[in-house]
């Protein structure tokens, strides 16, 4: 498993975005993020049907010793949340890019994609 797969896009706040064939976007947190957090114990995710906004707080991810805000990597309507990750938060540590996905969103503004980082750009951001 690549630490930061090249088919994903990233944000400085350590979220990843995968654009699916049907135009929806799947969102999660990166390998780096879960590594920094330690064992994830709880997730507070936006409700299905609610709207998220790029760069605005949309939820929280909690580990034993810390709690971090989740920021919307782009704007849109929440279509689905990953029930498995709610019942088993450890999925986020085990498989942050696949089974550990958090929400699926219908993006509302394609222009926002330009603000997302490539694998190389994200790699540089976390190295600094």
């Amino acid at each position, binding site marked *: 498993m690549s630490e930061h797969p090249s088919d994903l896009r990233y944000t400085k706040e350590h979220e990843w975005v995968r654009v699916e064939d049907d135009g929806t976007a799947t969102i999660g947190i990166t390998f780096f993020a879960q590594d920094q957090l330690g064992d994830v114990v*709880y997730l507070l995710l936006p409700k299905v049907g609610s709207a998220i906004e790029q760069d605005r707080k949309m939820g929280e991810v909690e580990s034993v010793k810390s709690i971090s805000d989740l920021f919307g990597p782009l704007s849109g309507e929440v279509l689905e949340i990953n029930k498995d990750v709610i019942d088993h938060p450890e999925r986020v540590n085990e498989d942050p890019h696949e089974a550990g996905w958090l929400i699926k969103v219908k993006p509302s503004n394609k222009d926002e994609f330009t603000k997302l980082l490539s694998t190389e750009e994200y790699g540089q951001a976390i190295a600094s």
Partner: protein
Amino acid sequence: MSTESVAVKAQQALKVHQTLWDISVPGRSGVRLPDSDVPTQPMPDAALLRSELPLPELSELDVVRHFTRLSQKNFSVDTNFYPLGSCTMKYNPKINDVIASMPGFSGIHPLQPESTVQGALELMYNLQGILQEITGMPASTLAPLAGAHGELSGVLMIRAYHERNGNPERKVMLIPDSAHGTNPASASMAGFDVVTVPSDAQGNMDLKALEAVADDKLAGLMITLPSTIGLFDPGIVEVCEIVHKAGGLVYGDGANMNALLGRVKLNDLGFDVVHLNLHKTTSTPHGGGGPGAGPICVGEKLIPFMPSPVVERHGEDEQTNFKLTSPPNTIGTLSAGHGNFGVLVRSYAYLRALGIDGLRQASGDAVLNANYLLKRLQHLYYLPYDRMCMHEVVFSGRWQKAQGVKALDISKRLIDYGVHPPTMYFPMIVEEALMIEPTETESKETLDVFVAAMETIAEESSQTPEVLTEAPHHTPVGRLDEARASRQPNVRWRPLETQQS
């Protein structure tokens, strides 16, 4: 079965974990009270009454054995050395407990007519006076029930002061990056916006950074002295001047007061309000997490805003009369009582036992002990601030981290040597922080044993690190699965049928 294995099994049985519900036997009897001596009165409508009272049923010996055995699983000051930075785990004198248990103190009701509790009010009045003298501040109240409670009162008073002066727009509370978490939490509860001010490389407040944020939105600054790194900021007077010049007030977190007893008056340095932690500085027992007391001493500007009650003395000689009063612009009351009186009694007894000479002895030996440990350990553990410390010394576990051993592992290994871990990972500005506060009541022998343990641990860190990473080895339980406790919180007992896995 052989005699030996019976004995082993018996020993193991003693170590088996049991809760009250494991011991409970239906029909077993607890406390009985005398029968009613009044004519029977009609009971309420059954719809209002509960049908079941699902509490465990134990005999008296069951209760005594259960809790006595539990207590034996604890470390305590009575049994172990606790070098916990910022906690001041000094000896808790037994006479204080005896005095607090006297019926005239433990048996009185807070709402009794004041004429019937003049002894209690006199004690509180005298304690106010002693705390005022120690801090140099002109007034005080004993109402807050813990340090954080005192902090909340203090910042609420600062807010009331600015509102009364027609400056409600002063919404910013400045807090150093090294502050204890209760500081920003209290400021937030009082409705302030928290702005963090950085410390400089010497661990003092960065004066330039402070000046940059000391504007007309400033309500005040919360600062701990000595700082949470155990250092006396020599620029403290200037810090207070900068804040005052910008129209703000200075709140002093007195958690580290043990370093300053009898050495300096906080009022002289420019503080407008300070809280004291009586369960730290004045030896009242920690109780496993309280009770404590957090009285506040205030300067002239804030006197009218103090929380209620304040004890006042009226009249003279035989006409002397102590009263509970409310300051004219009080921020209100923080609890239904007058303060944690049982803690106040212990504190008063301690302070009367010490007098000024004893107070200076306490701070003197506390600071001496901390510096002694600094000198003896600085070649083995990285000292981020290479200067004389006050009552506590902060080391960094960074050298050990390079060997794969964390401050957490060092701490857990100390347990195997019978020492409670020091404060870890605080303050946040020091990497792998280990904050050590020996207090004045520990002997040189105890300190030398502690040094020997730390020396051994430093060696183990490079030779046999797994001994550290798997520590502690001799306690009733080892390191616990905290992730599981957070993911599937189990915070109360449930009957078997309703339990989840």
